[in-house]
């Protein structure tokens, strides 16, 4: 009996340590609180957070290098929605179909979940979502007697009237993400889909040279060169550069993600209390189609702690955890019912507007070749925005490259 204590001392070391790789999301320090709760509920598991580099390109690169080399030293992966089909197709993710139950999946936004399925199998789940939104200067619109625009022609008319009346050389009309990078694809997709077009047809063939797509792109280009509503420097704007311009009061409209709202409303911001948020515009006869963003979690197929990793993934989907993800971490939960929560509605009045966007959200094409398609599209879209090539020529070139890539030629 007296010889036993030694064994008891070594007991805590038998806990399984999970490694959770995640990106530096806004206020991600609060994730630690959630993780502590998980550890308290599951005494046998410890979760170690490992933070990825700041840029999504570097995060993707990290995963690709390590997963291709069959690394097993991390268990749970935090992934941008656009990488999920790619990683699943490569066989790098554990199948979650029986592990995450139907009941747990049901309340998640269907558009977000769509990217997680490959050949009837589930490989990841969204833990937070994102949707493109249109920000507007409420004060300027009120002052000049305009309602928030629903269509692009309305936006154009509103912007031109206000610009003409204000006569402020520093004020511009409408800014969006026009630099040659992934954000440009997100912006352009909202124009294209808002006109009934798309990147790929059913069956995965490119649909880039169809009239709705070309018209939408022509309109993007015209806003810069013909209508003078979007400044030429849009070709250098990413999310933060756009926010900087809008927040310093020098744009009437901006397309961006919801993260910008609390930042622009905080004390010290020049536009605090003077802005509104609504659905991204569409063309007459069509509907608003915001681009879906957000991050998903999956389990490394080579993980040696799959059971525990699955428990952690399921924990992140729970209603109470999802609510904390919204209130503490400050990103939009994937759980639909959190948006109806009384406490949430009271603390975050803008949530109903965001829910409206999320209900119309459309993911980027959920195909394993998405990264390649985007890599081909980015320079061609950029060429359209910068006025180097007209839409038809640029999209014809992109279509040829994509068809070559997919082996369709």
């Amino acid at each position: 009996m007296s010889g036993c204590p030694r064994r008891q001392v070594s007991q805590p070391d038998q806990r399984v340590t999970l490694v959770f790789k995640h990106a530096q999301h806004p206020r991600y320090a609060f994730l630690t609180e959630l993780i502590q709760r998980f550890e308290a509920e599951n005494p046998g598991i410890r979760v170690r957070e490992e933070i990825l580099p700041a840029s999504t390109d570097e995060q993707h690169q990290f995963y690709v290098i390590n997963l291709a080399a069959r690394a097993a030293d991390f268990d749970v992966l935090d992934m941008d929605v656009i990488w999920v089909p790619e990683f699943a197709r490569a066989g790098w993710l554990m199948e979650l179909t029986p592990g995450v139950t139907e009941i747990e999946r049901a309340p998640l936004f269907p558009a977000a979940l769509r990217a997680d399925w490959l050949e009837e199998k589930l490989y990841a789940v969204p833990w937070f979502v994102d949707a493109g939104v249109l920000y507007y200067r409420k004060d300027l619109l009120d002052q000049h007697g305009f309602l928030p625009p629903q269509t692009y022609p309305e936006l154009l008319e509103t912007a031109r009237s206000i610009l003409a009346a204000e006569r402020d050389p520093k004020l511009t009309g409408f800014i969006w993400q026009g630099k040659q990078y992934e954000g440009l694809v997100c912006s352009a997709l909202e124009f294209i889909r808002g006109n009934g077009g798309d990147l790929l047809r059913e069956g995965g063939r490119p649909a880039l040279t169809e009239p709705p797509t070309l018209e939408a792109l022509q309109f993007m280009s015209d806003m810069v060169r013909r209508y003078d509503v979007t400044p030429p420097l849009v070709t250098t704007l990413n999310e933060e550069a756009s926010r900087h311009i809008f927040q310093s009061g020098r744009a009437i409209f901006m397309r961006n993600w919801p993260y910008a709202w609390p930042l622009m409303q905080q004390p010290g911001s020049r536009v605090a209390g003077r802005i509104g948020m609504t659905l991204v515009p569409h063309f007459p006869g069509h509907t608003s189609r915001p681009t879906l963003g957000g991050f998903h979690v999956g389990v490394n197929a080579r993980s040696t702690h799959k059971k525990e990793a699955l428990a952690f993934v399921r924990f992140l989907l729970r209603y109470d955890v999802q609510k904390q993800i919204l209130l503490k971490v400050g990103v939009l939960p994937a759980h639909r019912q959190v948006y109806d929560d009384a406490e949430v509605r009271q603390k975050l009045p803008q949530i109903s507007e965001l829910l409206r966007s999320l209900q119309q959200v459309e993911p980027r094409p959920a195909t394993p070749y998405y990264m390649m398609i985007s890599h081909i599209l980015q320079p061609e879209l950029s060429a359209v925005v910068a006025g180097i090539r007209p839409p038809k020529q640029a999209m014809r070139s992109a279509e040829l490259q994509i068809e070559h890539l997919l082996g369709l030629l």
Partner: protein
Amino acid sequence: MRASFRERLGRFGLLGPAVAYVASVAVMPVVFTLWLSLRKQMPIFGISQFVGLQNYLFLMRDARFWGAVGHTGYFVLVAVTLELTLGLAIALLLHQKFPGRGLARALVLIPWAVPSVVAARFWEWTLNADFGVLNFLLGTRINWLGDPFWAMHAAILADVWKTTPFMVLLLLAGLQVIPEHLYRAARIDGANSWQAFRHITLPLLKPIILLALLFRTMDAARVFDLIYVLTGGGPGNQTETLVIYAYNLLYRTLQFGYGSSVAVATFFFIVLLSLAYLRELRRTWQMRE
């Protein structure tokens, strides 16, 4: 006999670790990349097969690749020429005696000591079309990083700022070993400063100039971080260089086979440029002997 064999064995034994190290970090990756470039390797599709020269055949008619070759060539040509001209002028200036010369020499080096990514961020803000200092100082509204014409030149400007000090450093070292008595003799013969520069400084500095050009050309031909941060290759791929294209293929789209062929092509592009310099350099040395 026996002892000498053991001695030789001992010598090779001592070299062993160094050879193994160089082989594993320098030779192996190159060989591996060469091997990869002969394969179609796309893990997403589960494709991994030997395709021989197919990647290189596609490379020959890949417009994006030739665009990148053009952008890289233009960048190297303009940036290195400017760096040499400016570097030589500054080196000559810093070679003169004047009060505060030591401080001036130290200050000139600062841009070179700044890490590339930091320098790129700094230029990203300076060149910002909206609130950048450069437009403010010039009183212009040029879209430096977003205009198809200006973007490449803005990148060149940033590179010249960053690496001219390196030229200065090498050329200054070269100037210091030119014997002073040659200039004195020239002055006695009635040569003016231009003639002294043309017939003494330049010929004696030539090997150093060639060496500096070699270093800078190799470096500029594989430019990546600066442009990647400034423009990401845009607008409309106008600033996409060979290494950025290879990076996009390899890490953003996981085309390991084709991406490796672009990397190998870049490697040979740089080797070719270097060989041209090395031939000239050898000629200069032979002439001296």
